């Protein structure tokens, strides 16, 4: 086996269309709910003083903030397009368009001095999904192509054979997730050395974050404030954080490793929420980790399948 074929087997593995479709549904639904829930903060940036404008990402193309009506219209369009994205409707157009708009909107929100690291992974995942054939199953597009058959196969049944054209996107989604956690671990070692593992830096961060929130009149974590005096708690927490971040590539070893890692990182985010009152909604929802799992098998369970079919029946049909 040559190196190139080994790379190809790793990066272009066969995977079922339904798995990628399920990831699209989950990420699209999450994005829609997130955008609606955070509509206020997303819209409010349009009224910030222009002197605060500090563009990042694609927004760096702008020399000045957008006029407020245009900024609001782009946000509204993003919210509207989240629906056909999640449903897999006209996906060849909607997929890339929504992905780029979500990237724009989250970048625009981070272009006023505060970078919302809680949104990076969602934007990157949707970007990959938007340019992948993620609507070949579990979508209105698939439903149109493959109506319900006399043999009982439901409308929109997935292409039977797993294929690399679905596998690459799932692999890339997993790799991007892993890379973001490894980078966070590397940043700690680079900026503080292995001293980070002794827990004092983490303890100070938890204390600082709660001080800042208390002084700024925001929600803080009573649990984090209560634990700060107990210094012995923080070395194991620091080691666990570093192991989960730097050890993220181990999730590629297999399904069990992925399951253990994903649950570990999810618990890590629950810990961050409890100790610092900082929510990373995308990982906390577990949607960020769905690409690591064969979710299509879960969808094949009779009860889940019945729910999916009932949901499909409620959706508009298009020809």
């Amino acid at each position, binding site marked *: 086996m040559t190196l190139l074929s080994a790379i190809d087997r790793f*990066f*272009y593995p066969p995977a079922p269309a339904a798995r990628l479709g399920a990831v699209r549904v989950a990420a699209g639904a999450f994005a829609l709910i997130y955008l609606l829930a955070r509509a*206020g*903060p997303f819209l*409010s*940036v349009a009224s*910030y*003083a222009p*002197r*605060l404008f500090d563009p*990042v*990402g694609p927004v760096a193309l702008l020399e000045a903030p957008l006029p407020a009506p245009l900024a609001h219209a782009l946000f509204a369009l993003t919210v509207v397009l989240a629906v056909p994205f999640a449903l897999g409707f006209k996906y060849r157009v909607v997929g890339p368009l929504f992905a780029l708009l979500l*990237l724009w909107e*989250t*970048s625009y929100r*981070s*272009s*006023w*001095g*505060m*970078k919302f*690291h809680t*949104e*990076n992974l969602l*934007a*990157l995942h949707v*970007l990959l999904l938007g340019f*992948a054939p993620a609507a070949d199953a579990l979508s209105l597009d698939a439903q149109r192509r493959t109506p319900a058959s006399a043999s009982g196969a439901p409308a929109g049944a997935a292409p039977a054979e797993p294929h*690399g*054209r679905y596998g*690459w*996107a799932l*692999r*890339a989604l997993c*790799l*991007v997730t892993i*890379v*973001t956690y490894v*980078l966070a671990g590397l*940043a*700690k070692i*680079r*900026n503080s050395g292995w001293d*980070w593992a002794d827990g004092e*830096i983490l*303890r*100070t*961060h938890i*204390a*600082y974050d*709660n*001080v*800042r*929130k*208390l*002084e*700024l*009149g925001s929600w803080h974590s009573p649990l984090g*404030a209560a634990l*700060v005096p107990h210094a012995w708690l923080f070395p194991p927490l620091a080691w666990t954080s570093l192991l989960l971040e730097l050890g993220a590539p181990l999730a590629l070893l297999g399904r069990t490793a992925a399951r253990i890692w994903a649950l570990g990182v999810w618990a890590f985010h629950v810990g961050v929420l409890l100790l610092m009152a900082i929510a990373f909604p995308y990982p906390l929802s577990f949607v960020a980790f769905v690409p690591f799992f064969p979710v299509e098998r879960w969808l094949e369970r009779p009860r889940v399948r019945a729910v999916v079919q009932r949901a499909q029946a409620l959706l508009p049909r298009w020809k």
Partner: protein
Amino acid sequence: MSRWLAYVVGLGTVVATASPAFFPDQPDSYPLSTYPMFSRPRDKPTVFFVEGLDAAGEGVRLPSALVASQEVMQTAVTVRRAIQAGEPAISELCAEVARRVAASREHAQVRAVRLVSARFDPVRYFTVGRAPESLTEHRRCSVGGER
């Protein structure tokens, strides 16, 4: 999608996501980031905020939206950047907050606002007491014109 395009999009996104690791001296950005949060030693950080003052000179906590934004952390960054930028940014922010407070019926008791930076020992804050180690008032603006 063809295989080569899959590689371009998929591996390209992965490599781009990893790329900040190779340029650690570049400022953090979005969506490509080094994820520097919580990575540096904090020691005794300075908190920048705006507070109201009542007729007796007692501090009144102002909601984030009155200062700059609904987002508390965004507001904190706005205040820090204004203070670090110096004049005229300090005076502009102070005057803006004073105008918003003057229009807020819930804050009728506020007579002045001030931009403040305070240095805390964060661990000591929770183990000994909440008093800052030092506090600097950068600008005070009257709210009372309309009251």
